[in-house]
């Protein structure tokens, strides 16, 4: 499959107005298309599982997207509208409470020099089924395309949620986060930005690489994994959690990304599809050390009281990734799509 070199100079503008998934997202999407007004303070928060509910997580995702690339067709003044921020706070409160119920924040105190070991303990305790092993050995082309669509919700803005933490840190942990993020953003080279590499993977898989193109297909359980990063990143009080999230993310990246790359090669895909994953094997081998030892350890050295939050952020990541992976593998093993709607066949 030959593809023209991506035009990396173009603005990666978000595309597509998402469809509502319930009453709340319908009200929100209706409101966003016009100038801001005071949203009712008593809008009902969806009653489904706060860790995966479609209506709740689409509404929260849209509220956060106003701070990233924006929502297509939305009046940009909504970003700092007090009534929208109040609604977002209510959604966050429901989400965060469910996170604490699912993953108690009860770690014993950990010394700064031991944080990397404690984080490794979280990674090793993760008993989730391995999506990456499945992709390496048996996934079909249709399934790897679905996998890429799920991941596009984050990977097309890879690293951005963790960048919110930069101004909240100082000294050694700040330097460590910059060391990681510089790599994520391609070390100053547009075509090496990880989000750009992922867009190339989407192109190679005959998928739409435009930002937001698949939002309607991505279920709440996937959006929750992205909303988690925005929640942690946008609240200073959760700086320990976003650091723990990044550390575990990096620590559980090199080996799975090697498997994804081998799965793609098994299916006959070339360098344009695998470059993103190959890059992550090498880059995250560096990042996991820097994130666990220098970033997480460095933060806890400055603020020992944050050790518990660091580990909680890591555990919550593992929990939401496990739920997401189970949902995807359950669907595939049942011969069904893991998305809200199946994709058109490649080349169609």
């Amino acid at each position, binding site marked *: 499959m030959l593809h023209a070199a991506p035009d990396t100079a173009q603005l990666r503008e978000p595309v597509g107005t998402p469809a509502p998934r319930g009453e709340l997202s319908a009200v929100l999407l209706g409101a966003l298309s016009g100038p801001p007004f005071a949203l009712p303070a008593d809008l009902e928060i969806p009653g489904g599982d706060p860790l995966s509910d479609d209506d709740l997580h689409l509404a929260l995702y849209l509220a956060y997207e106003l701070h990233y690339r924006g929502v297509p067709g939305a009046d940009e003044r909504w970003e700092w509208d007090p009534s929208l921020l109040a609604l977002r706070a209510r959604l966050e409160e429901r989400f965060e409470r469910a996170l604490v119920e699912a993953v108690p924040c009860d770690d014993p105190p950990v010394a700064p020099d031991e944080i990397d*070991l404690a984080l490794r303990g979280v990674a090793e305790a993760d008993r989730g089924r391995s999506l990456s092993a499945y992709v390496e050995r048996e996934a079909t082309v249709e399934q790897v395309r679905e996998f890429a669509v799920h991941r596009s919700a984050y990977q097309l803005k890879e690293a951005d949620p963790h960048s919110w933490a930069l101004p909240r840190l100082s000294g050694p942990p700040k330097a460590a986060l910059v*060391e990681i993020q510089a790599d994520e953003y391609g070390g100053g080279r547009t075509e090496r930005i990880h989000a750009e590499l992922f867009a190339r993977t989407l192109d190679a898989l005959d998928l739409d690489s435009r930002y937001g193109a698949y939002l309607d297909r991505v279920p709440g359980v996937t959006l929750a994994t992205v909303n988690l990063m925005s929640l942690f990143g946008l609240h200073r009080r959760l700086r320990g959690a976003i650091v723990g999230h990044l550390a575990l993310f990096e620590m559980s990246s090199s080996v799975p990304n*090697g498997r994804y790359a081998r799965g793609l090669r098994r299916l006959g895909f070339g360098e344009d599809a695998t470059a993103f994953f190959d890059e992550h094997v*090498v880059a995250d081998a560096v990042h996991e050390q820097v994130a666990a*030892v220098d970033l997480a350890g460095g933060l806890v050295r400055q603020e020992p009281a944050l050790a518990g939050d660091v580990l909680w952020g890591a555990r919550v990541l593992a929990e939401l990734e496990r739920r997401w992976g189970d949902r995807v593998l359950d669907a595939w093993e049942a011969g069904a799509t893991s998305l809200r709607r199946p994709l058109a066949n490649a080349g169609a």
Partner: protein
Amino acid sequence: MPEHAPVTITPYRDGPLLVRGPVQLEDMHGNPIPVGRETVALCRCGKSRIRPFCDGTHKVVRFRAPTGAEDGRG
């Protein structure tokens, strides 16, 4: 980084050697091995599939080594 800051090589506990600073990596015949990044992780457990670079396999094989120097009596 200041102009004369030395290159540092850091053994991370149970993990790779992180090399920070401008270095040239060469094979034994003097052919350059492209690095392409500011900080590079070199395999220390011997099991990486992309040696001399680290690919995270040390975790799978439960490689153990201290961050400081070993004294040979362990």
